[in-house]
């Protein structure tokens, strides 16, 4: 076949990167071969893996296109675009999604990637923050996360984050909800088994924001966590609840060294 389209060649480059990541030899921080952790990518069927690997079939890439346009677009009273401060996205945002949540300079609360984008909106661009799960916020997050593809998850070693991370670990381990389950009950004790026919993944946040087929749209890690809370019949938290960021901090530490595959497709 003489298929030489730009899309096709991009796809093969990505497929090669991903294959590299999946065979536990990512570029900078290889996981030992006996590491039991793996991305939810490996729990999916072959069709879904192909959908994620092909950048012209992965619907998340539609949102990346929107994010790319927003990156260049001036906004707010400051009249600045993301690119005005951060310039070339491939350099400035490489590995950024792999290390968030983090503490912004001078702040006393950590923020996740979406929170950081909204901080830039309100403080630098002097524009109103994007609503949670809005296509604009998800598009920008996906565009930024794409720059960390294949990069190992590398949470910052900032000691100020440790108390938040331990709150996150407590949330992860404590039972809650009417079904009396903890995150750990499924994602540690029963990962790899099935829950009503669906495989239980290990719960590593390697691919967020994800295009989830059930949602028919892109969604953040927060939305996924809310989904789990509802599933265990626990009380959902408000979108701005700091418990999400604490839990995200712990999940990223738990996935340390694993390769990012954002923006991923999940069933």
């Amino acid at each position, binding site marked *: 076949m*003489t*298929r*030489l*389209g*730009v*899309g*096709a060649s991009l*796809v093969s480059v990505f497929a090669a990167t991903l294959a590299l990541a999946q065979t536990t030899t990512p570029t900078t921080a290889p996981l030992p071969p006996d590491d039991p952790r793996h991305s939810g990518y490996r729990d999916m069927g072959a069709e879904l893996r192909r959908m994620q690997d*092909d*950048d*012209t*079939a992965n*619907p998340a*890439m*539609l*949102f990346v*296109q*929107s994010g790319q346009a927003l990156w260049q677009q001036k906004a707010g009273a400051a009249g600045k675009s993301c690119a005005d401060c951060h310039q070339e996205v491939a350099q400035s945002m490489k590995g950024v999604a792999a290390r968030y949540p983090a503490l912004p300079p001078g702040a006393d609360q950590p923020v996740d990637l979406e929170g950081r984008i909204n901080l830039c909106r309100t403080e630098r661009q002097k524009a109103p923050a994007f609503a949670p799960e809005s296509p604009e916020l998800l598009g920008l997050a996906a565009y930024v996360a794409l720059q960390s593809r294949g990069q190992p998850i590398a949470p910052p070693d900032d000691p100020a984050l440790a108390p938040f991370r331990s709150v996150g670990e407590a949330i992860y381990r404590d039972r809650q909800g009417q079904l009396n389950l903890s995150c750990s009950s499924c994602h540690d004790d029963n990962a790899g088994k099935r829950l009503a026919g669906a495989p239980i993944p290990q719960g590593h946040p390697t691919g967020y924001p994800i295009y989830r*087929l059930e949602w*028919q*749209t892109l969604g953040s890690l927060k939305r996924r966590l809310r989904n789990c809370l509802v599933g265990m019949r626990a009380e959902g938290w408000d979108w701005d609840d700091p418990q999400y960021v604490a839990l995200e901090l712990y999940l990223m530490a738990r996935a340390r060294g694993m390769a990012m595959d954002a923006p991923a497709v999940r069933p």
Partner: protein
Amino acid sequence: MANVLVNAPKTAAKGETVEIKALILHPMETGFRTGTNGRIIPRNIIERFSATWNGAEIFRMDLSPAIAANPFVSFFATASESGTIALRWTGDEGFVAEHQVAITVT
């Protein structure tokens, strides 16, 4: 401006069968769901997708409310001459999206 991703070969041999894949951002709202106010959310779907090769139609399909959001279409064509493959989506609420790709047939 519609958000479209098209995967088609840039070159093909004469007589070769080529695959053209097209993905478009669209909610495909069925018209059967109710919103938070209890009222029906009006139907908003893509009704028709068509493809032409140098103006001659090579593929057409009608879409239904049962098709999921962001529809992905893949179809095949026989490469006969160099030129332009034009894709066109039309639907509810005056939705129109067009995308063109060039192909060289040798």
